[in-house]
């Protein structure tokens, strides 16, 4: 396992590989020209789709390549989380409480400093009155005949503030920090859940890809293009399997759209040539037919373009 520690850990969950560490994401992109797709959204902005963050989701072909090139290992993430013992849990809870207290202390100090400087006597008095009023209203919450019709209420659970001594009660808000990566937890131990080859991960049922001839062909084509120095992205926007970039997709347009053909004898229809060729020409990309020969273990490429006449 010593050797695999230097390799990037791809965390597998539900047969998909994620990268959570931004340094790993940078290494993958700049050193290994593997881009993946950022998929993380903020919990309260789940519809966002322009600026996404960690985790990075990798294409299955990227995963197979990284493992075969001994650049990464697969970690079965769910089984790397063990049950924490009470001591570890208590330590974690103490740590959490400490950060909350710290935040409250900082916020309190900041507010009293600002209040002393900027608030006038009158403003402070008004504010105190307002707070007293609010406290009075809270003390007699229901029962009073009011002009505003009271909604019929189910019996409320006991007031949260009195029932939860562990939560520091305060008028200040604080953030509960949940780290996006589990590796800092003492009960996170991936040593028994790490797979250095695709075969071992497949045997353990952690990973499946590639399981068919077509999937093997996709992996072989991806590998061949990667070895030629290209960057690959998903090709769906241009009707292919991969988009092929001469450099980082942030800097270059793609020059090619690739379709993977699993065998030299797979059926091709002339209509595919026309459709791919015409779309490619219109978008200034050549279309590649990338064929895989499973017997010879060879990849061959043909480029299609409109002829310019007829």
């Amino acid at each position, binding site marked *: 396992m010593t050797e695999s520690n230097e390799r990037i850990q791809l965390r597998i969950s539900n047969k998909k590989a994620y990268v959570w560490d931004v340094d790993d994401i940078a290494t993958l992109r700049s050193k290994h020209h593997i881009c993946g797709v950022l998929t993380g959204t903020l919990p309260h902005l789940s519809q966002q789709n322009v600026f996404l963050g960690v985790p990075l989701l990798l294409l299955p072909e990227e995963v197979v390549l990284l493992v075969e090139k001994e650049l990464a290992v697969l970690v079965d993430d769910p089984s790397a989380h063990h049950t924490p013992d009470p001591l570890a849990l208590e330590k974690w809870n103490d740590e959490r409480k400490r950060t909350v207290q710290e935040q409250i202390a900082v916020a309190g100090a900041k507010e009293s400093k600002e209040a002393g400087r900027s608030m006038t006597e009158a403003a402070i008095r008004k504010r105190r009155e307002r707070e007293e009023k609010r406290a009075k209203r809270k003390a007699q919450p229901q029962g009073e005949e009011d002009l505003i019709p009271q909604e019929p209420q189910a019996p409320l659970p006991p007031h949260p503030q009195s029932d939860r001594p562990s939560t520091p009660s305060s008028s200040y808000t604080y953030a509960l920090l949940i780290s996006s990566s589990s590796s800092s937890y003492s009960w996170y131990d991936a040593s028994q859940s790490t797979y250095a080859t695709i075969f071992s991960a497949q045997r353990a049922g952690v990973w499946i890809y590639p399981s068919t001839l077509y999937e093997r062909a996709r992996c072989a084509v991806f590998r061949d293009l990667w070895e*030629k120095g290209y960057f690959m992205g998903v090709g769906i926007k241009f009707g292919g399997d991969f988009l092929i970039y001469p450099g980082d997709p942030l800097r270059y347009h793609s*020059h*090619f759209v690739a379709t993977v*053909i699993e*065998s*030299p*004898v*797979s*059926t*091709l*229809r*002339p*209509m595919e*040539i*026309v459709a791919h*060729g015409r779309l*490619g*020409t219109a978008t*200034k*990309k*050549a279309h*590649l*037919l990338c*064929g895989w020969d499973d017997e010879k273990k060879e990849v*061959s*490429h*043909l*480029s*299609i*373009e*409109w*002829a*310019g*006449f*007829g």
Partner: protein
Amino acid sequence: MDQHPSHAVLSPFVSKYPRAASGVFQAYNDLLYAQQWKDLEVVDLPKCSRCGFRGRKAETASHDAVLSVVPCSLSESFSLSWIHSAFEEFGGPQEVYIAITAEDSSIVYYKISQGIVKPPL
């Protein structure tokens, strides 16, 4: 059909590869009369079960280059190995043009190049 001026040159291949006859006839006539190619010759492509053509474009900047064309009907299906054998039969040129013909006499040509060839700017 046998009255057509193209019949004489194509007839051996029409009888040899009857299934490809209509596409061959259509592509040859288009290249000769519509595209006005020069030095058009017919090439037997046994591995593709049809004949193909070699010729030079009409007055263009690149009219010196001899281009290879293999006809194919829209209703056919083929494979990568079929395309590779077309390259082989033409003697391994860098590119082969595929003439795709439809029953309504429309025809479109696509250039297929070996390897990864950048599109022109």
